[in-house]
């Protein structure tokens, strides 16, 4: 990648594209060509820059530097509409549908078909239904989108893209919500597009799909292009190694092997929404138990159910050998289970309130006596929590003004005050800078050493591997096995997580 390759006269050429969000560089000097009629798969871990790259190509966000050419002419779209006018369309990872409108109206939104100055609903319905049938969805196009299952909604999104008559389509994780049959139909359509000379960029976590649909493979890691294969016939193991590549030594604390008794044992847990099925595992006092998997594997749903937030359809939860039924967060708290949620701002913190009140809410039984709480007691409780976790701030400081790392410490401090038996951490270092990460790892290790059982859910493989005594890998709601500390490698986890 030392020499910039020449620009091609046809298709899309990406040259030296860089993107930074503030001080964070998410894409670094990307060079990539997409020729007419070919499908290029873009692979990478969470946060490798795949979605950023596709957003730049589709005109959703501009690059910080670098240039693109489309069929030999400079291409710098300022909006998705401008990209579309060049024939370049994007199918979003997250669905952008209008739930109250019909399928046909969604497919043709912004470019409704007109006849004699009136909307030609008959033609819109007909064309939408043709596309839907190609994708294996046989329902009237007059159906409202909100009545559809998630998979069907995803198919509507794809149908919408197929009617764009684009020359280049970007599929960002199109199969995340689809089953096997629906995925096969999608691939048939991509093959048809290829035969018609339409190019596609295919982004997916599911490595086994790649060989079937892609002509070439590009691998991103930490925002840089680390490999481009001119064939899709690359062993999965090699791709995984390229994706996870580095073995950066982070400052993970030494964690002694757990010797305590079993704290939590779950058996055959199945979620009420069926987003995880038949999960069994146990965690001992002093043990850090990691849960790995790609986005959408059901990790958060599983731990939310254990914390009494979401209901279970089946399975048993035992705490210290005793069967418990947890139907509300209060039940779980009273049983000694606390959870530090993934969505700090939406679920963990009252951003407009001071640190002292944030740690006191939910703990008023410890702050005061018999339901009486004086402001001075709240302040003292806050000061104590700040000391216990080394939060940089004062009790009266608003939580919304703290850094991500400090906010995370506030939540941990709040629940530590209850001396819990089981601490669940969902993505404990998301949005936390590297310096504060080491401190949070230190804190997690201390929880374990103090005899608590700890569950860490993380998309960061280094983190799961560096912290956990054992790692359970989830894929599509099912357990793919529990790995001991020695066997939990990047490759072993990713192979299980992506199949």
């Amino acid at each position, binding site marked *: 990648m030392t020499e910039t390759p020449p620009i091609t006269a046809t298709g899309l050429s990406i040259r030296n594209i860089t993107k930074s969000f503030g001080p964070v560089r998410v894409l670094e000097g990307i060079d990539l060509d997409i020729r007419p009629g070919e499908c290029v798969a873009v692979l990478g871990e969470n946060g490798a820059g795949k979605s950023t790259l596709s957003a730049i190509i589709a005109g959703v966000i501009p690059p910080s530097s670098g240039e693109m050419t489309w069929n030999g002419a400079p291409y710098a779209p300022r909006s998705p509409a401008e990209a579309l006018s060049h024939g370049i369309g994007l199918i979003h990872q997250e669905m952008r549908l209008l739930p109250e409108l019909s399928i046909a109206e969604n497919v043709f939104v912004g470019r409704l078909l007109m006849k004699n100055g009136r909307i030609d609903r008959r033609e819109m319905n007909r064309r939408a239904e043709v596309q839907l049938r190609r994708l294996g969805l046989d329902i009237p196009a007059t159906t409202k989108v909100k009545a559809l299952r998630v998979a069907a909604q995803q198919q509507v999104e794809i149908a919408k893209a197929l009617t764009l008559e684009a020359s280049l389509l970007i599929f960002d994780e199109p199969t995340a919500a689809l089953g096997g049959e629906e995925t096969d139909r999608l691939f048939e359509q991509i093959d048809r597009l290829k035969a018609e000379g339409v190019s596609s960029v295919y982004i997916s976590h599911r490595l086994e799909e790649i060989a079937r649909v892609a002509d070439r493979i590009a691998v991103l890691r930490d925002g840089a292009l680390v490999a481009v294969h001119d064939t899709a016939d690359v062993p999965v193991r090699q791709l995984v190694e390229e994706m996870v590549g580095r073995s950066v030594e982070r400052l993970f604390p030494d964690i002694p092997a757990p010797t305590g008794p079993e704290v939590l044992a779950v058996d055959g847990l199945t979620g009420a929404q069926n987003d995880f099925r038949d999960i069994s595992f146990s965690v001992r006092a002093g043990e850090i138990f990691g849960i790995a998997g790609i986005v959408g594997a059901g990790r958060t749903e599983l731990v939310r159910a254990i914390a009494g937030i979401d209901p279970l359809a089946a399975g048993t939860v035992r705490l210290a050998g005793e069967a418990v039924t947890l139907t509300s967060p209060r039940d779980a708290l009273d049983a000694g289970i606390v959870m530090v949620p993934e969505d700090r701002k939406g679920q963990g913190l009252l951003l407009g309130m001071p640190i002292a009140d944030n740690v006191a809410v*939910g703990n*008023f*039984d410890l702050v005061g006596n018999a339901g009486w709480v004086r402001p001075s007691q709240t302040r003292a409780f806050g000061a104590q929590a700040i000391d216990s976790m080394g939060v940089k701030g004062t009790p009266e400081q608003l939580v919304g003004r703290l850094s991500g790392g400090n906010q995370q410490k506030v939540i941990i401090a709040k629940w530590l005050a209850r001396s819990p038996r089981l601490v669940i951490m969902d993505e404990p270092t998301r949005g936390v800078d590297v310096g504060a990460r080491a401190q949070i790892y230190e804190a997690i290790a201390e929880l374990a050493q103090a005899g608590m059982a700890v569950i860490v859910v993380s998309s960061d493989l280094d983190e799961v591997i560096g912290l956990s005594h054992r790692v359970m890998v989830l894929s599509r709601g099912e357990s793919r096995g529990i790995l001991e500390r020695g066997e939990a490698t990047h490759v072993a986890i990713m192979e299980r997580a992506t199949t």
Partner: protein
Amino acid sequence: MTTEAASTTPERSSRPFRLAFDGGVLGPLVGLVLLCVGFSFASEYFLSVRNAINILDQVTVLGILAIGMTLVIIIGGIDLSVGSVLAFSMMMMGWLYQFGGVPLPIAMVLGILTGAACGLVSGCLITFAKLPAFIATLAIMSIARGLANILTDGRQVVGYPDWFTNLATVRHFGFLSVTVALFIVLMVIAGIFLRYRATGRNLFAIGGSAEVARLAGIDVRKYTLVTYTIAGALAGVAAVTLAARLNSSQPSAGLGIELDTIAAVVIGGASLVGGVGSIAGTLIGVLIIGVLRNGLNLVGVSPFFQMVVIGAVIALAVAFDTMSRNKN
């Protein structure tokens, strides 16, 4: 880490600790004092004990309603029904006493329970039927007003005993009627509850973020139900107070008073988004509205122009509050 420490430590000031979401009461208080000073110069009758007692009498009903509204607004809700619920409670009390042969003390209690029941229905619509608070209480507003009129076919109820009207008119110790005393006692209880009780503090957490509160183990639905029920019961208490003052029950009583109530709470520094508000602020808000009405009357400003002035004061007070908050 060192830079982070440097940027945060200066905020530790020598000021005494005050919980930020108690709301800035200082701004409205300054406004109230300025109004009083202004009216003292404009009218020779304004600054007197007699007029002060008049103002307290005049704001009693509004003040009792505003206590309930403060709780509702702190949890991030709104209650448009309090004026109609007041009328329904009042008519229920009058109807039971006059046509049902119920002794008046029991009719008073049943009137208050009528208000509580209306609040409970609003709460159920919000928590179980998942209606937005605005819509749920808008519906109850219409229903309660209708029921208030149905009870007596739109006629007023008169003929209360003297001891009842004396509650509002006889000034013990030369200044304190029973109704004003009740208003003050309720204010004190609510103030202590919001500031010193864990359950009161939980209301602020719910208004800050219902989801965060739920995950912290707070039963948000139960709190919501109880809060609207209390607001309804207080509308019932206000109804009894107003009936004593008017010496009658009127099905048209309290028309539009819900908006004055909301205005008083918001002038007192509460945020309609939830999580912010205080009883002290609400008291000041109520007094600002009372002083404005009283002072403008004494100065001889027409009722129509009074409406314009009060509207301008609401806009000014909230704009001032928002600006000072943003500056912080």
